[in-house]
C-alpha cells in the first residue's frame, strides 16, 4: 500500500499533464472550431435558397459558402420596429464586427419580442434577382427549432426554406430538417392573400386544404409541425415593419 503522499503526487502529476494537453489542443483548434460553427450556420442560411445557387448545393464546399457570403450576400440586422441597426451600435452591443452572422440567436430568443434583433440576408442571384432570407425560432416537441425562410422579391412568395432543431426525434420531428419533400412544399406558397392580409403558411395535419397558403404535415410529428406553423406565423410577421419600407 503506497503512502498517501505518493498517491497525491501521482494524481497531481496526472491532472497537470492531462489539463496541459487538453488546454493546448483546445487553444490550437479553437479558430477551426469557430470557423466550422460559423460556416455551419451560413450553410443553413443558404439552404433556404438552395435551388437558386449556381451549381449543386449538395456538393457545395466551405470555401464556396464563404465566397457566396462575401460577394452575393448583404447582411443586415433589424430591430422590431423595422429599422436597420448600424454596425457601430451592434459592435457596442457585443456583436462581433457588427455583422448579422455573429448575432447570438439563442440569446435574442430569450429577450422579449420587442427587444429582439433580427438578422436579414439579401441574396443576389447571378441573374440579378434578389431573395430575402429571414430567420425565425420556435419550440418543437422536445426543444427549440428554427428556420431560414427565403422570400422572393415580391416579398410574399416563398422561394425556399431550411429548418433545424435541437432535439427532435429522428424520423419524426427531425423530418423538418431531413425530408426534402417536406421543405420543397413551401416553395411558391404565399404569405399574404390577394387582399393583402397576412396569412403566413400553415402546416396542416392530414394534408393541405389551401394550395396557396398551406402544406402537408408530417405523420407522427404533429407537435413539431405545429411548432413550425407557429414560428412561421410569428417570425415572418416580425419582419413586416422593415419589409413594408422596401415595398414602397
Amino acid at each position, binding site marked *: 500500500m503506497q503512502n498517501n503522499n505518493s498517491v497525491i503526487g501521482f494524481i497531481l502529476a496526472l491532472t497537470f499533464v*492531462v*489539463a496541459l494537453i*487538453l488546454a493546448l489542443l483546445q487553444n490550437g483548434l479553437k479558430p477551426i472550431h469557430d470557423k466550422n460553427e460559423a460556416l455551419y450556420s451560413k450553410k443553413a442560411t443558404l439552404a433556404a435558397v438552395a435551388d437558386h445557387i449556381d451549381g449543386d448545393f449538395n456538393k457545395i464546399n466551405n470555401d464556396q459558402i464563404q465566397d457566396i457570403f462575401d460577394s452575393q450576400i448583404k447582411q443586415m440586422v433589424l430591430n422590431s420596429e423595422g429599422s436597420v441597426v448600424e454596425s457601430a451600435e451592434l459592435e457596442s452591443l457585443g456583436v462581433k464586427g457588427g455583422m448579422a452572422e455573429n448575432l447570438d440567436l439563442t440569446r435574442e430568443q430569450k429577450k422579449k419580442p420587442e427587444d429582439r434583433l433580427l438578422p436579414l440576408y439579401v441574396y443576389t442571384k447571378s441573374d440579378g434577382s434578389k431573395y430575402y432570407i429571414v430567420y425565425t425560432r420556435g419550440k418543437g*416537441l*422536445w426543444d427549440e427549432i428554427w428556420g431560414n425562410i427565403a422570400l422572393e422579391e415580391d416579398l410574399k412568395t416563398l422561394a425556399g426554406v431550411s429548418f433545424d432543431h*435541437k*432535439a427532435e*426525434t429522428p424520423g419524426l420531428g427531425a423530418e423538418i430538417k431531413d425530408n426534402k419533400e417536406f421543405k420543397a412544399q413551401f416553395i411558391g406558397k404565399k404569405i399574404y392573400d390577394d387582399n393583402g392580409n397576412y396569412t403566413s403558411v400553415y402546416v396542416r395535419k392530414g394534408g393541405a386544404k389551401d394550395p396557396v397558403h398551406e402544406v402537408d404535415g408530417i405523420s407522427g410529428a*404533429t407537435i413539431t409541425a405545429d411548432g413550425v406553423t407557429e414560428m412561421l406565423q410569428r417570425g415572418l410577421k416580425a419582419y413586416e415593419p422593415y419589409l413594408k419600407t422596401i415595398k414602397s
Partner: protein
Amino acid sequence: MGDLINIFIKSAFIENLALAYFLGMCSYLAVSKTVKTAFGLGLAVIFVLGITMPINWVINTWLLGENGIFQTDLTFLRFILFIAVIASMVQLVEMVVEKYSPALYNSLGIFLPLITVNCAILGGSLFMVSKEYNFAESVAFGLGGGFGWFLAIVAIAAIREKIKYSDVPPAMRGLGMAFLLTGLMGMAFMGLMGIDPAAF
C-alpha cells in the same frame, strides 16, 4: 413549482433515460435477472443521479462557463470533471450502503461501483447541459430521470423472472430475449411521446 413537476414527469416517463434514450443498458441488462437486485440498483441510481446533477450543474456554470469564476471557456474540461464527480459520489454511496445495509451491499456486488460507468448518469448530466436547465430544474431532472430508470429496470426484471419458465428458443434465451423485451417496452413508451404534463 409546476414547472419542476413537469420536468420530473417528463424525465421519468416521457423521456425515460432507459426506454427512450436507451442509456445505462449494460447494467440494465446485467442486473435485471431478479427483481430484488434490480430494485436495489434502481434506488442507488436515483440517489446518485439526484446528487451528481446539481453538483455537476454548479461545476458547469460556476467553474467552466465564461461567466464563472475563471472567466474563460473551460468547457473542454467538462468530461473529466463530471466523471470525477460521479466516481467520487459513487464511492460515497458505496461506503454508506456498506455501513447501513450490508445485505444490499453484498447482493449488488460489483454493480455498485459500476454505476460510475452507467451511461445514464453521465448522459443525464450531459443532457442537463444541452437543455440548459437552471439549478432547481437539474435537481428535478436528476430525480425524475433516476426514478424513470428505476421503474424501467424493475419492470424488465419482473418480466424476465416470469419468462425464465417459458419455452424460449435456446439461442434467444437470456440475453436475446432481454433485448427484444426492452425494444418492445421502448416502443410502448414511445406512445407517451408528445404528452405535455403542463396540460394536466
